């Protein structure tokens, strides 16, 4: 146990936290590797920001342990924790120049004047805003403020960098640029980083691993692709992209494995377990073709009627009524190809390998 802690950047053990009567974090256990870029992903109210603030020492006092490089910091006040946090709205001090903002943390650490100047220059250089050192925060654009907030935090060389929805106040184009820059900076500094977001695209593109939170409980931890392809439960499946979820039960006999939906349809499976209560598959793993098409072993076939159709540019998304369940199908759009109309009878071919059986 102790060995693992020494190599881990951040370890959280059985963390519980309440706002008055409301239990916000429920027994959170987590281990983040040294130098890892880790995302907390969840809808609003899931407790992700609360968890981040608990690591920084803000908000109600939690029970449990928070270890950073092996040391329990749960009892330390915020100013002794050495975790740098970038706030959602940047929290730059309006009465100080950019340079003053960035040197603040070093001044509080009683670093020598010469050292401060050198490190501030380096930090500002790293975010590319050397020329703005003598401006006030109010004279900067949102993106520039974001960079200054980042510089102000990394200049103290914290043990962990905490980012609280850092991109949410930027416009769409800047967001993409900024998330690349943050990732690049993190790689350069090899800084253990925790990134809070409600946007799965942000989490997917930046992080090595992520934790999906809902209602104060960690639902699943893993690499983005792993979570997308192998969601541990319905919440993760739904939260990470669009998913078709059909309720029913698994029926096994000696020769075959079949999922019988609550509406009485049979869908052959390749793998599964007897107590499975629902199947999940993504729209892009289903193909749609005219009724009566033959089917091989690799696919399960369902027959239905087109209920609605949305043209999304690169794909056409069909909603197909299969015996009362609406199944979403993404069909790659190619020019000249014929398009099914609402009311057409169609066959759906589901890639059997991609069908996931879940207990709930």
């Amino acid at each position, binding site marked *: 146990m102790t060995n693992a802690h020494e190599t881990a950047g951040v370890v959280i053990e059985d963390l519980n936290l309440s706002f008055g009567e409301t239990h916000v974090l429920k027994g959170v256990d987590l281990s983040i590797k040294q130098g890892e870029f880790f995302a907390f992903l969840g809808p609003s109210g899931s407790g992700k920001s609360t968890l981040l603030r608990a690591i920084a020492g803000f908000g109600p006092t939690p029970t449990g342990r928070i270890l950073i490089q092996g040391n329990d910091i749960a009892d330390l*006040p*915020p100013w002794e924790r050495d975790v740098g946090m970038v706030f959602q709205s940047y*929290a730059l001090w309006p009465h100080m120049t950019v340079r003053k903002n960035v040197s603040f*943390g070093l001044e509080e650490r009683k670093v020598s004047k010469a050292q401060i100047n050198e490190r501030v220059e380096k930090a500002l250089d790293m975010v590319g805003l050397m020329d703005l050192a003598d401006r006030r925060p109010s004279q900067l654009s949102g993106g520039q403020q974001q960079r200054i907030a980042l510089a102000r935090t990394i200049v103290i060389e914290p043990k962990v960098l905490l980012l609280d929805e850092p991109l949410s106040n930027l416009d769409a184009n800047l967001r993409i640029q900024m998330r690349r820059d943050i990732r690049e900076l993190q790689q350069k500094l090899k800084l253990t980083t925790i990134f809070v977001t409600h946007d799965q695209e942000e989490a997917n593109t930046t992080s090595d691993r992520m934790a999906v939170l809902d209602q104060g409980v960690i639902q699943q931890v893993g690499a983005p692709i792993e979570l997308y392809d192998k969601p541990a439960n319905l919440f993760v499946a739904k939260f990470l992209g669009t998913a078709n979820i059909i309720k029913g039960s698994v029926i096994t006999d000696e020769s075959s494995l079949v999922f019988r939906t609550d509406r009485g349809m049979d869908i052959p499976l390749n793998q599964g377990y007897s107590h499975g209560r629902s199947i999940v598959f993504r729209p892009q793993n289903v193909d749609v073709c005219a009724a009566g098409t033959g089917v091989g072993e690799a696919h399960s076939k369902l027959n239905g009627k087109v209920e609605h159709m949305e043209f999304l540019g690169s794909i056409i998304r069909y909603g197909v009524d299969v015996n009362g369940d609406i199944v979403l199908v993404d069909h790659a759009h190619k020019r000249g190809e014929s398009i099914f109309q609402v009311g057409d009878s169609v066959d759906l071919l589901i890639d059997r390998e991609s069908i996931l059986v879940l207990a709930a």
Partner: protein
Amino acid sequence: MSLQISSVQRGPAVVGILIALFLLTFLVVPVGQVIVVAFQDPSTGEATIINFVDFFRNSLFRESFFNSFYVASMSVVIASIISMPLAYFTTRFNFGGTALIQTLGIIPLIMPPFVGAVAMQLLFGSNGSVNLLLDEYFGFTIPFMEGLNGVIFVESIHYFPFILINLSAALSNIDRSMEESAQNLGANGLRLFRRIVFPLAMPGYVAGAALVFIKVFDDLGTPLLLNVNTMLAPQAYLRVSSIGISDPMGYVISVILVGFSLLSLWVSLRALKGKDYATVQKGGGGLMKRDLRSWEKVGCYAVVVLILMLVLSPHFGLLLLSFGTIWSYAVLPDAFTISHYITVFSTATQYITNTLLYAGLAALFDVILATAIAYVVWRTDLVGRKWLDYGATAALAVPGVVIGIGYLRTFHSVDVPLIDQPLASWWVIIVIAMTIRRLPYALRSCVAAIQQVSVMLEEAAENLGATKARTVWRIVIPLMSGGILAGFVTSFATAAVELSATIMLVAKETDAPLAYGIYEFMQSAAGRGPGAALGVIAVLFVGIGTYASHLIIERSNKARESTSIVAEET
């Protein structure tokens, strides 16, 4: 874990307890003392209401009580008559004189009413300029300044801005959609006014009127200077200063004054509570305004100019008096001179230096206390922290006379070590009285300032290694500085002309501040000139102070606008 919390909270807790002790010693105990004595039999010390029975048996006190009530009520009526057309003009018409009216709302407040009282007598008294002219050209006079009329006249000219400001705010907060939807549903003209505009504007008016009532009801300086002694506050002062602090009548009057203060504040708060009729919606704004026809415009300007002349008359009279040689039975002084100013600067500079010292110290203590209270209340979770706010604000409900009597009673037997003198007659007690009385103003200013500081800015500092104390010093106080400075200036300017508590606490001439000096000079006919000169100096103090605090607030609002853009995006 709990140990950690307590060490973080220890600093604020100590500060909170010290402030609580200060408020207890210099506000709660003296006022409590006054109330206890009022309900005590003077000889046996038993609890009784006999003092109140005695009070109402005495015809002089009954008359004083009635007069105070009458003067305060009539002042509300006159102040309303002055305010209503002004508020109406600015909110209903596209009227060029709006800026003029806004100025009208500030001018009276920069001069305490007692300062102008004597000058008003010379302008409007039975042998004053106006009546001399009226008599000469029209053969009649108007008793503006006869007895209670004088008090009502001076007070309503001074306090009408409270009604004007509140009423204008209430009217301009009514969205035009309110009016349009009523019209759309068939209401029009007077019915529309009675059923929609009037009810929506009512809370603002009542709040302003209650303030005017209580300010007039409590005022000591104006009746004293106009030599009207048959009112409650002057009676309390005269009883204590002539018979002494053992006479129960001063205390009975104090309890009545406090009772009415509380009642008025309650009415004012009740009027506004839950009726925050800010109906202005996005893109809307104010009632429908219409253009004036030219003859209407003339009429409006005539009314505004008339009121402006009335409002400026104390200032104008004071200036004339301070530069005039002899001014009696004449429209204007016989000749002009600067000798009164020379007199003031050669013999009465101690009033000015005392005032600078006292008001400066009081304002300094006020902002220190107010900043600390604001921080403890809004940034810690200490048990009972709200009571600091309530306690400091409660000073609003305590008239100066009551503070004065309470201090005399409580501290006359408390000797100050080293200087061997009772605390009640040491000059520092004047500073403390000013501090307590002006603390609510500084507190509101500081509370507004701290509410504008995002907690996140403090968390960012703590995150980067600053302790709570360092965060307060480097982030909170600098960001609050506009509000703190505005609080200082307001406290200073208003403390500089504080009379009602000061007049009782001045133990010797050399300790007296400006307001007391003006009062002393104005007592004799020969002293009026120098008294007026001192008055002009006082007006300059307050005027410059008010303007400075206005500038500071404007500036920090602007600075805030640029920063709040960042904060709002959350």
